[in-house]
């Protein structure tokens, strides 16, 4: 029997395979990549009974329209996502996030949009038949690394499943993607390059997420941050969450597909516990930053991890 597959009838805006990303390649210019919102990624796998880190499909804003051919399987979608399931019989019903559905050959899943958020995740039982590059199946479209020639999905493409006809087991999680009031940060290594006033503005005023925001970085607009030492530094390594401020005074936050080296002063670094929520902020959203100590950031990460674990354990 031939393998089951999803045919991509509409690819969506930026639909890719993602997992937990690839390590230890920064030194040759290759970033982590991986699912932007890690918690939602893990939950989507858990809902179909997978090991949490198997490959999922990540989509942004408008997602794909997929049609299954082959045997039955179960699927789940996470995030704040509006989607329909169109049965072979043409019966349409609205799907709900955070629960699994059994679908059959001929059924379609129409992922219409993410609501007031950017990314959503689509997982299928036993995951997809996908190649791994340097230990990860994440697609980095900028460097064209990963499966699918490193490209986002295109219309009419087929995405093969690893298995089919698996026993369906309905799973559900009661979860609401909460919003946070602040994005918390730790002062960066060039914090003192900025004027006293700029430091105050950074921790008190609102910044707006610009349209120039993607998996590589998030550009912000707001009151210009005045640099009193030098608007360039000698190029050095970057990590995700670093907030750089170039000469124009507008912050840029490095996200999962970021360039690995940069030469702009680092005013701060977003704490690990807030990263999943940061990436879900849509263009036009307002951000307020709040400075925290390293010790607090570590504690907050502990809580974040514990909460994620609890959610995963609640899925039955």
């Amino acid at each position, binding site marked *: 029997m031939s393998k089951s597959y999803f045919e991509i009838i509409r690819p969506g805006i930026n639909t890719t395979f993602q997992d937990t990303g690839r390590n230890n390649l920064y030194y040759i210019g290759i970033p982590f990549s991986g699912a932007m919102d890690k918690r939602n990624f893990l939950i989507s796998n858990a809902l179909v009974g997978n090991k949490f880190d198997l490959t999922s499909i990540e989509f942004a804003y408008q997602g794909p329209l997929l049609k299954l051919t082959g045997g039955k399987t179960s699927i789940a979608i996470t995030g704040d996502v509006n989607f329909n399931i169109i049965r072979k019989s043409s019966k349409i019903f609205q799907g709900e996030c955070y629960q699994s559905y059994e679908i059959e050959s001929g059924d379609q899943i129409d992922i219409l949009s993410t609501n007031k958020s950017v990314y959503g995740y689509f997982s299928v039982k036993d995951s997809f038949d996908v190649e791994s590059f*340097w230990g990860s199946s994440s697609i980095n479209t900028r460097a064209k690394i990963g499966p699918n020639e490193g490209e986002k999905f295109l219309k009419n493409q087929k995405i093969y499943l690893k298995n089919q006809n698996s026993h369906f087991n309905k799973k559900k999680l009661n979860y609401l993607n909460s919003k946070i009031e602040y994005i918390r940060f730790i002062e960066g290594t060039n914090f003192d390059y900025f004027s006293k006033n700029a430091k105050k503005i950074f921790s008190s005023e609102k910044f707006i997420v610009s349209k120039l925001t993607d998996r590589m970085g998030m550009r912000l607009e707001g009151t210009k941050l005045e640099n009193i030492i030098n608007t360039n530094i000698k190029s050095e390594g970057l990590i995700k969450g670093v907030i750089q401020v170039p000469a124009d005074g507008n912050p840029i936050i490095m996200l999962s597909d970021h360039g690995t080296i940069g030469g702009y002063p680092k005013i701060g670094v977003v704490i690990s516990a807030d990263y999943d929520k940061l990436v879900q902020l849509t263009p036009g959203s307002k951000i307020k930053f709040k400075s925290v100590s390293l010790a607090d950031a570590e504690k907050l990460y502990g809580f974040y991890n514990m909460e994620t674990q609890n959610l995963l354990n609640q899925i039955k």
Partner: protein
Amino acid sequence: MIKNILNLGDSALYCDFGDEVNIDINSKVINFFKILQKKKISGIINIVPSYNKLIIVFDLSITNYKELKEKIETIKIEGFEKKNEKIIKIPVCCDIEFALDSERLSAKLNISFDEILNLYFSKDYFCYMTGFIAGMPFLGDIDPKIRFKRLETPRVKVPKGSIGLTEQFCNIYTFESPGGWNIIGNTPINVFNKFNLEKPALVNAGDIVKFYKITKKEYLNWNE
């Protein structure tokens, strides 16, 4: 060696080797990077060498800043790693079609483009670091007479293979990318090959690059 270790956010160590950019300091960074790579310390998920800094990224659910800093501080550097630097030859075509900034650079520096190229091809270059985009080498130092700042407005698309100059450095655009370096030529070879899983980047930190000039005809008929 390391002058100071700071935290960069909650999951990275920022090791400062000094403020200057020179081969001596950079060699120390690369040496320490290679030692760390071999040690495979638990929790470290990335190490990024640059001119005079080394950033060590760790998994915060496995270790933390204080614990890892203590481990790093106890690492003894027993002399330099054997300098088995590789010499890599890279062909470059400087035909006007590829040398996007030849006229501008020549006018700004007030020397002919031929003279710029003579100075450029007369030296070997040291690879300080690789990155920004996959496989892009940062090489130096170019002759002081041909140093110039970045473009005021970076290009949205610099063609793959472009050779760029800025300040004391030159680089190679391993794939089409935005960029602001002054472009003087193009190489037909793949400096980054994602299918070579063991060694995708042709030029790595610590290597030596020798550029040599090829004609447009040679460029067009290039067969790797």
